């Protein structure tokens, strides 16, 4: 496994270097992953490790389902206070889960295709129409923006794009938007749906990185949607409901300050693996230490400094620096 973790660190280094070189960091809102790492990293890694010690990874894979959010958790190993052995154990378990779900767990070929037992073929049996495309494109936009409100900096906690899958002569790209509404998540009570799946018939090949960022636009032929399991829905009606809910929720969040956003994100992050704890009969809770840290400490990652450092560095050097950091985080670095 250690060799695989080294390879994973190198893959992450490659993908993140591209991201950072492209100045994504200056656009992150309302804070960076480094900021969330400071406040939440320790608490998350400890809680996740304790939970995964009690759930076999085969079961965890079936419960968690979405590999991108699991890869996202590995970021929090950077700078957390777990011992080297514990970091290695957590990284191994998380990547072990991803290997079960993804055919190519490293996304080396820029694809995110699930292993057969994790593919719900019921999603393929939908009525695809070209006339749906304008509606589903707008829906994709709205849902992505909504996820950015409820899971700021880590929207992959609420979406997974995967495929393509061949079905009836079509190439299908599956866009699952999940955990959109949850009694534990503040500000989601007015959102009308829990899960929306957009199925797109495409002619080009999708390219995603290991974090499920779509790297290039797709050529779409037709599309369909499934809303909370229902295939017979009016896309326009669904979009209008979401647009109204989004506008209302946005207004409520206009007065949020930084600490409010941090607390909202903390709840979303710890809730994202709550199904594992529920399996163990445990309650949902954000550790008090985490909430105290948010209340009492004022850490701000220096974005300007990072932006300059990223701009000045060669891509290859950036890649090596990030990879080495992740190797250390996974307990396989020197």
């Amino acid at each position: 496994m250690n060799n695989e973790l080294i390879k994973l660190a190198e893959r992450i280094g490659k993908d993140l270097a591209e991201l950072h070189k492209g100045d994504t960091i200056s656009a992150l809102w309302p804070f960076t992953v480094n900021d969330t790492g400071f406040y939440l990293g320790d608490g998350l890694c400890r809680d996740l490790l304790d939970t995964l010690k009690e759930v076999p990874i085969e079961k965890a894979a079936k419960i968690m389902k979405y590999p991108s959010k699991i890869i996202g958790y590995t970021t929090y190993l950077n700078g957390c206070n777990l011992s080297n052995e514990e970091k290695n154990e957590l990284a191994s378990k998380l990547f072990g889960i991803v290997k079960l779900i993804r055919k190519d767990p490293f996304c080396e070929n820029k694809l995110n295709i699930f292993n057969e037992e994790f593919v719900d073929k019921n999603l393929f049996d939908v009525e695809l129409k070209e006339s749906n495309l304008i509606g589903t494109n707008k829906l994709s936009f709205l849902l992505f923006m909504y996820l950015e409100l409820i899971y700021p900096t880590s929207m992959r906690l609420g979406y997974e794009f995967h495929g393509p899958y061949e079905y009836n002569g079509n190439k299908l790209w599956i866009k699952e938007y999940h955990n959109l509404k949850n009694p534990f998540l503040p500000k989601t009570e007015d959102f009308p749906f829990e899960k929306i799946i957009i199925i797109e018939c495409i002619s080009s090949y999708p390219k995603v990185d290991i974090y499920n960022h779509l790297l290039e636009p797709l050529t779409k032929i037709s599309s369909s949607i499934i809303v909370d399991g229902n295939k017979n829905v009016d896309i326009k009606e669904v979009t209008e409901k979401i647009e109204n809910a989004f506008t209302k929720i946005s207004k409520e969040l206009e007065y949020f300050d930084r600490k409010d956003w941090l607390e909202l994100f903390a709840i979303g992050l710890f809730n994202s693996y709550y199904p594992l704890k529920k399996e163990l009969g445990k309650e949902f809770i954000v550790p008090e230490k985490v909430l105290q840290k948010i209340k009492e400490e004022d850490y701000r990652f220096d974005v300007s400094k990072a932006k300059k450092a990223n701009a000045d560095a060669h891509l290859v050097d950036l890649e090596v620096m990030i990879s080495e950091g992740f190797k250390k985080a996974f307990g396989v670095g020197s």
Partner: protein
Amino acid sequence: MDFEDASIACPGKVTGVVRFVRSLEDVSKINEGDIVITNNNSPLFSIAFMKSGGILSQVGGNLCHLAIVSREMNKPCLVGIENIFERINDGSRATLNATEKTLIEENE
């Protein structure tokens, strides 16, 4: 006006009225088809982005969230443009050619 420093988030061409969006108050002033100029990719500005015909952002790169959603909507979009507000006139009518990385104002 050429934006050599910009990244093309989504190619394409659109003509419309340029509108600066720097605060939430500015969001309500956007009409359908306006070309939005912004320094903030916050989702709280989403309604402006959705109504816009095209977007130019001071911040971000090709993989920033605004870039990704502009590709979903097939909306011409350039990101990472330094000093953008000094280079363009608010309220002018212009054509954004994101493919060529240009914005031509009608009085140019």
